[in-house]
Every structure is written in C-alpha cells, then in structure tokens.
C-alpha cells in the first residue's frame, strides 16, 4: 500500500472547494463573533440594566455548550418550530453564537484592565460617553485583549471542523467522504492536515504581527 500521488492530485479540486467553504464560514463567523463580543462586553462594562443580565446568561450558555450541540439545535431543532435555515447560515450563526461568548470575555478582560485614572482623566477633559469609548477605553482595552482575541480566532477556525454534521462539505467533511468512498485514508488525512496548516499558519503569523502592533497601550498601566 504505497502513497497514491495520483489520488492526491485528483482530489485537489475537492479540497480547494472545501478550503474556500471553511474560510468563508470561519471569516464570517469570526467577524460576527468580534462584533457580538464587543457589543456584549460594553453592555456588561456599563452595567446596562436587563441587557447586562441577559448578556451574562448568554456568555455562560455559549461558552459551556459544544458547537456540535448548537449546530444540532439550529439545523435539526429549529425546523420543528417552523424556522428553516440553510446549512451555511446555520454554521455561521452557530459559530457566531459560540464565538460571541468567548470574544465578550476577552474584551471584558481588556476593559477591566483600563485604569480608573484614565477614566477620571477622560471625564475631566469633558469627553462624552461615546468619546470615552472611542478614544480612551476601547483602544486600551483592545491592546490588552489582543492576544486572547487572536487565540479565539484560531480556536473558531478550528471549530469549523464539526460542520459536517449539518451536511456542509468543509475540509473535515470531504476527508471523511473520500475515505468512505475510496479508502485512501493516509492520503486524505495528510491533505486535511496540510490544508488546515495552509489556513492557520498565516493566521498565526498575522496575529503575532498584530500583537506587536497593538502593544501601544503598555505605558503606565
């Protein structure tokens, strides 16, 4: 049983399409997660009534349930309530639901690290709430939160590997499919790992670069 290079070449287009789908779900899911996380963390930071409590509940729910279960609920559960979402939408919503909780916690750690002196200073020069968020709180929080936000991004990209349960043909899914049809296990698994590395290594290096760039707020903390 040698290594079947012909097989590897013949399935390249399938893996190509799968990489694109994985990237699409990961990018949209991660961006929406960042948005949801940022909004949630601000609601918590400013102790907004009701919404703040809801956010707390959401964070616990999203961080303490596996993505597979969330996808199962969206794909197989919602149709029972008359809501039928296409599988790609389910995947992006699921990833956002999961990621939003993690991102909110990362942002919160950043917000907590902003010194109260900074807030007092901001107020004393007459900044309003929006200006405080935009120019004082958020930039400093982002600087502190950057490493853990980055880790979350990598985590979310890897989490996309479970979407085959809702019949999406991502990298993990086509690998299982090819193994099931042609039994070229070694070749398929190798391609799988290489594809994930192709996606994740550049992301990791980009994040290292970004972390350096975002160290601007390290003075006087």
């Amino acid at each position: 049983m040698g290594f079947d290079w012909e097989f590897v070449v013949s399935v390249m287009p399938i893996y190509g399409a799968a990489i694109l789908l994985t990237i699409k779900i990961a990018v949209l899911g991660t961006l929406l997660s960042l948005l949801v996380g940022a909004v949630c963390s601000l609601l918590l930071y400013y102790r907004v009534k009701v919404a703040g409590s809801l956010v707390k509940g959401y964070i616990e729910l999203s961080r303490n349930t596996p993505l597979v279960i969330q996808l199962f609920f969206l794909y197989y559960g919602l149709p029972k309530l008359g809501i039928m979402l296409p599988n790609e939408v389910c995947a992006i919503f699921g990833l956002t639901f999961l990621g939003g909780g993690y991102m909110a916690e990362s942002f919160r750690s950043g917000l907590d690290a902003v010194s109260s002196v900074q807030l007092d200073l901001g107020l004393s020069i007459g900044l309003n709430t929006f200006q405080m968020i935009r120019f004082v709180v958020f930039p400093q929080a982002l600087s502190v939160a950057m490493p853990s936000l980055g880790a979350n991004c990598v985590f979310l990209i890897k989490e996309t590997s479970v979407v085959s349960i809702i019949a999406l043909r991502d990298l993990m899914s086509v690998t299982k499919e090819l193994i099931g049809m042609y039994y070229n296990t070694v070749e398929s698994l190798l391609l799988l790992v290489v594809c994930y590395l192709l996606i994740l290594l550049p992301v990791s290096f980009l994040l290292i670069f970004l972390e350096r760039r975002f160290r601007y707020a390290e003075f006087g903390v």
Partner: protein
Amino acid sequence: MKRTITKFFSAVVMLSAFLLTVGVLTGSSSAAEKKALDTIKENGKIRIAVFADKPPFGYLDESGKNTGFDIVIAKRVVKDLLGDENAVEWVLLEPANRVEYLEANKVDIVFANFTVTKERAERVDFALPYMKVALGVVSPIAAPIKEIADLKGKKLIVVKGTTAETFFAENYPEVDLLKFDEISEAFQALTDGRGAGLSNDNTFLFAWANQNKGYVVGVPSLGSLDTIAPAVRKGNTELLNWLNDELKKLGAEKFIHKAFDEALAPFYGDTVNQEDLVVEGGVVK
C-alpha cells in the same frame, strides 16, 4: 517582516517533513498485527462491528440491546465459534468507518449490512453473502420521486460511505447530493424537508417507509443487484474460511430464512418477498 516570512517558510517545511513521516509510518503499521482464529478463541471473545441506527438490520431496542437481522445472524456465528452467543463485543460504527475499523484492527468481523463492491473488496475480504440488495429512493408521498430525472434542481440525501453515495457520484454526477455522516441524521433531514428524497439500500427503505407514514419508495430498484456479506481484515484467511464454512452450514438448515422471519418480517408486513432478499449458503439465485 522579512524574518517572519523566513520563519513561516521554515515552519511549513518542517511540518511537511513531519507529516510525511507520520503518513509513511501509519501506512505501513496498519497491515502488521493480525488477529487469527486462535487469538479469538484464546480471548474467548470476538469483536463484531454492527450498526446502531439502521432498523431492522442493526439497531438498539428499547433496553439498549443490539438487535436486528445482522445481529441475529452474527449471534448465531458467535455461538458456533465460541459456544456462547454472548461472547461478543459489539462495536457500533458509521457506514463510512467500516473499512477503516477492519484495517485498524478495531474489529474482527464487520456485520454491518456491508454491500460487496469492487473497491471495498480491494481493502477487505468479504465472506459469502447472506442477503441481496439494490438501491432505492424514498420520498414524501406528496412529492414523490419516481425516476432520477425528477431530482433535477433538487437535493438528494445520502449517507457518507454508502453504495448510494458512490452510485450517484459515479453515474449521475449532476444530482445535487446532501451528505450526512450518520443514518439517523440523514432521515431527520428528510423528514425536515431538507431534500427531495433519500437514497439508500432498497431493503432498508422499504422497512423505513413501512414504519413512517407519508413516505414512499418511489424508485424501488436502482443500479445493479448487489449482495451483502460479512467482511474480515484483508489476509485474515483463517477467519474468512471458517466464516464461509459456517455460512454454508447455516444455509443447509435455512437459518437466514429464520432470521428473516424473526427480524425482518414484522417490519416489512407483506411488502417484501422473502426470496428477493435472502441468500442461503452464499448461493445467489
């Protein structure tokens, strides 16, 4: 920035080298260890792979016990081999894992409604068949799929690693397939209306349509008539020969007919003729 790029490339090169080594190692080691008949007898236990979600062939009853047509036959085989029908470790798997589990030596026999195909026979050794099968397509009575042309612009649900998936991929690549890992998930998707129909073994679909009102096997027979047989690891000739002798013996006493009456008849009612399905002693009529 330049340093980062150099680092990136060296990391890629190192990882690729590592992965190739792993690939070569796993490729060569899987063929090594073989579990022959003596080892099974010594252990007093045999590992058999079956389905947990394909009634009436392999499924779990209310109390969680493995049951079904495959299991009835497998139990008899175990009894004749080890003297006790309970001297077995049932291993539950998904369709796509059947070859894998044999190659990785996780099970001794696959008794999971395994259709004999040329591709599979290159990887595992099939014993004599005990069942005949073709493909079918089940769909809602309200919007029945009666021929493959009806599937145009619609989605057809299949389970990964089944003959239905391969059949459509090779003969009708234009059909839009929605592929699931598990049988239960695929049927859930069908009842949710995620696809216009579902293709699988017709023997299985008849039973399912009989249990689920509102669905009909609109395409009752598709592709070639195949057989279903137990399989062992490639090269495990000792166990294979024993299994073949055993199936011949069971054929002489019409045991597969008995298994049909016990496990399948209640599911089929009078929709399926016993002789269209049962194979005795490996002789296909």
